């Protein structure tokens, strides 16, 4: 673990950027059609629930990383295995996000550039940031947060001014297909992006007033949920449902529709900008967490030594996990949530919480017993 401290505000903006990250640009939960905004909102509420589970465990073992407290909860052997699996999980998700980002840039802007180069540049940047440590990442987040919101607000105003929004497209509102909405929530939006907050359990110890963590996290998740929900609603309103369902990057299509007086148009840069900032924070935080978990698990002195090898691993994983974009996306939607997200994001934390709760109750009982006897 690094010797670093994060302010509440830094923690807050990091969560916000991390959550919005790539979810802002990919078509998130689009199976719910015109009700996508609702399924995202519902997903964020479930995400807050997950977050509380993790935070509760942390309150039993303050100032410790999950890789250490899992050893205390389930024993040294099982805890180490768990910690090891989490490292693999974070590295894999990090590689997935890198791939998402690279594919996006290659499809949209750099059509002639090999995926490897695009990913490599991103990973070089992340290696640099992780080497500098979490405080540097947090300060970067502060600056980029302001930029991102500036762009988002400008974009929103431009869309409103060009009169693209057709509220008709959002109808009928929540009239039926509750089944689909709930399925989307349970299989997609609750886990990506909101369940991915599991990564932040490794950042709790850095928070300077860790009591704020519970409120900060919940608020940031809710706010990012609202932001994503508004974005989804605007996308549907502008694009209409069939196009929204079938476009790979709804936000890009929406932005391409902006045309004010035949003069302010072709604003793709807004999209690329959002994609860049979001993807960077998502990748860098997963990357950092994977590195710091390894450092902690293997009792290394310094996390800096393993940053380069991890960079290479992530880079090559991002190339090899799928042979084309469709395979990559389908894995992400069909395979990963039930097989990886459910156990890692909610299954294991809940089991840990139950055991931790029982253990601590026993301890408290013993304590009060000794107190009484004494």
């Amino acid at each position: 673990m690094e010797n670093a401290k994060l302010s509440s505000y830094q923690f807050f903006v990091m969560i916000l950027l991390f959550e919005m990250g790539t979810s802002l640009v990919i078509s998130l939960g689009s199976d719910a059609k015109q009700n996508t905004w609702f399924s995202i909102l519902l997903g964020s509420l479930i995400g807050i629930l997950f977050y509380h589970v993790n935070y509760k465990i942390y309150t039993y073992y303050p100032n410790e990383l999950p890789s250490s407290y899992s050893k205390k909860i389930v024993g040294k052997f099982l805890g180490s295995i768990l910690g090891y699996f989490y490292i693999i999980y974070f590295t894999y998700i990090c590689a997935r996000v890198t791939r998402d980002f690279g594919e996006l840039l290659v499809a949209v802007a750099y059509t002639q550039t090999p995926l490897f180069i695009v990913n490599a540049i991103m990973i070089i940047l992340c290696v640099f940031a992780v080497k500098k440590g979490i405080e540097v990442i947090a300060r970067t987040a502060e600056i980029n947060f302001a930029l991102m919101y500036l762009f988002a607000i400008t974009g929103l105003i431009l869309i409103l001014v060009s009169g693209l929004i057709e509220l008709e497209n959002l109808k009928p509102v929540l009239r039926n297909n509750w089944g689909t909405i709930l399925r989307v929530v349970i299989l997609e939006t609750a886990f990506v992006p909101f369940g991915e907050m599991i990564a932040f359990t490794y950042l709790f110890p850095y928070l300077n007033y860790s009591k704020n963590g519970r409120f900060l996290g919940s608020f940031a998740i809710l706010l990012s949920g609202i932001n994503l929900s508004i974005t989804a609603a605007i996308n549907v309103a502008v694009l209409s449902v069939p196009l929204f369902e079938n476009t790979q990057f709804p936000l890009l299509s929406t932005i391409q529709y902006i045309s004010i007086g035949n003069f302010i148009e072709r604003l793709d840069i807004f999209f690329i900008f959002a994609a860049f900032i979001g993807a960077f924070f998502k990748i860098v935080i997963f990357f950092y967490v994977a590195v710091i978990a390894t450092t902690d698990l293997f009792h290394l002195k310094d996390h800096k030594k393993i940053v380069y090898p991890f960079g290479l691993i992530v880079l090559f994983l991002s190339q090899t996990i799928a042979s084309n974009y469709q395979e990559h996306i389908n894995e992400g939607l069909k395979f990963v949530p039930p097989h990886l997200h459910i156990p890692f994001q909610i299954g294991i934390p809940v089991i840990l919480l139950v055991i931790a709760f029982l253990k601590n109750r026993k301890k408290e009982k013993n304590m009060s017993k000794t107190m009484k006897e004494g």
Partner: protein
Amino acid sequence: MTKRLNLFAFICITILLAGCWNHRELTDIGIIAAVGIDYGQDKRYNMTFQFVNPKNIAGNQQTSGLSGPAITIYESEGDNLLEAARAASQHVSRQLYFAHTDVLMIGEEVARDGLTDILDIPIRNPDFRSTATIVIAKDSTAEQILKTLTPLDQIPANTIDKTLQFSESRWGEDIHLTVGELVPTIYSKSKQAVVSGFVLKGDKEKGKQDANIQSSRPLAPLNADGIGIFKGDKLITWAEGKTARGINWILNNIQSTVMAVDWKDKKDAFGITINLSKSKVSANVKNNKPHITVHIDAEGGITEADTFLDLSKAEELIKVQNALRKEIKKEIENSIQFAQKHKADVFGFGEKISHVDEDYWKKVEDVWNEEIFPNLEVKVEVNAFIRRTYLISKPFLYEHKGND
């Protein structure tokens, strides 16, 4: 040693970050203003590209000695559109650059056979913008229209785009539609597409030559003409003149237009400018029977009066206003009948029905255009107001002349 290593890394990264991998030099790209799609002779499609010729665009009149037309046309054939576009490399000395394409012109023959094959590439390709205007070359090929030179706006693509924009908002018989707006209606069962047409009048051969822009009266002017009615992805017929405007009234496309109202025996005695117009379509389903109400709010003033009527009196003005309401109502009802005759719900009535009663819509969506829409009861309510008569109140000229 580390310093040197850092310097080396610095140089390497600088090269990468400049982003030169994907570079396209300005002198290597041909900016395309308009794309035309027709059937080819040897292969399936013939594409026409209207390249902007930057050297010959006004602004440098000094060099006008060597100027040619502001555009250059190239054509190429292919069995699909991508092939046709890339095949152009054989005779175009530059890379085709679609990011500034403003007009997608489709030959009538192609439009009658269906647009599905054509619309995939514009929305899939990141270069091409969905804000490009889509137009159909009425009674001709896209090639013929794109080859025509136009005098006021030197780039014909701009002429087409602007003509449609202004004629939609100031006259109301055409429709300015982007590719992005068209796509959702192409496969929709509840709303059929409408696309504006363009015709070439006059001497078609002369239109291609400089003569067209050098004579004071264009020898072959381009005209926006009528609205093409689609069924699914196929063009089935044209709505022209007042019928087309009726469609625009319902679709809420009219910002401003002029109405002519008959008075007594005199035809078109009053010219009324409509400055504000808003339409609202509401639907309900009762006893398994759909009902549609079209409500129009309009506001305007008398800008021309060619008969005598004491317009300084409010009650007389109300009479004209009632005549105006009737006129607008007639226009709208005519266009509804026209659409019903051709069994194409271009107004999106089906969409409104599906919003109010989804179960009913599920039952009828497959037969909507064929069976339900043609017999649909549509109530038209027009709430038009004449607010002013501008500078003259009473048309005194006719007071002395008498009505004839």
